[in-house]
């Protein structure tokens, strides 16, 4: 699995944060990303992986591990944004390493509990995202 490097406590603006896409419903026919990919879960910690220093092989291996958690899970690709995109929405990216699984795991935090605010920020992140098919 991926590797030696530890994430700094302050993730740099240019760090690429990958959100693995496990349902075709998150991708439009023009390969743009729907906001659903960036809607936070109930605990308001949105899981992404810091991928700048990872090889493509390592990134996809982590994605496959994530996909295995889903019933009939299939990795469709990933939606890449930067930490700067996150901060532009008054959110923050903080390291949340998962030992033995994904030491590059990051949480996007700072979400409002108000649903419309979550949606508008997710729309902005989706607009900034770049889809990479698996």
């Amino acid at each position, binding site marked *: 699995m991926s590797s030696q490097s530890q994430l700094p406590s302050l993730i740099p603006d240019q760090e690429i944060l990958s959100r693995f896409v496990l349902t075709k*419903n998150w991708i439009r026919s023009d390969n743009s990303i729907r906001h659903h990919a960036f809607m936070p879960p*109930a605990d308001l910690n949105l899981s992404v992986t810091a991928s700048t220093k990872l090889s493509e092989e390592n990134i996809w291996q982590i994605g496959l591990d*994530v996909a295995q958690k*889903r019933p009939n899970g299939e990795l469709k690709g990933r939606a890449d944004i930067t930490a700067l995109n996150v901060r532009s929405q008054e959110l923050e990216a903080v390291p949340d390493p998962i030992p033995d699984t994904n030491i590059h795991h990051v949480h996007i935090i700072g979400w409002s509990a108000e649903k419309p605010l979550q949606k508008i920020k997710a729309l902005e992140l989706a607009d900034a995202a770049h889809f990479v098919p698996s």
Partner: protein
Amino acid sequence: MIKEMTATVALVSSLGTIGYSDSAKYVYFQKINSYNELQIPEFYFSLLKRVKPELDAVAHETAEAGWDGYGALPVHTGTVEQAQSFLELLPNGTPYPSVGAEPDGQITFEWYKSSRRTLSISVSPTGELHYAALFGLNKAYGTETFYRDVPEKILELIGRVYSL
């Protein structure tokens, strides 16, 4: 043709808050229909009939917890029924939305022209409509409740996605 005119006029009437003349609204929604490549016979199909298969597919895909691989809540039958009620209340001629689901188990309808001209509406099991939209550099978001008719704000936003 008369039926087509009637349906369009009904839609235009329900969108009276947009602020154009009646004739401008008529031309405007004719262009929307062209955008969606609607043929005249298809115009008579209700929006529900067109979108229901996608709603059913999303409901099936999201019926179990964790459907997104990140611990999403399941979409319950009551939420699907609310979403269907919302579709039934949209005026004929409304552009067709795409259907999705969010991790809290709410169904979404999306009207999309581009990534900076898009509207997403979430339907909650209790009939709340949470919306967010991007119109170029502008944005709109909030909550409306529907009961027996679709709030004018929602119709206005749908029209704005396709405005010229």
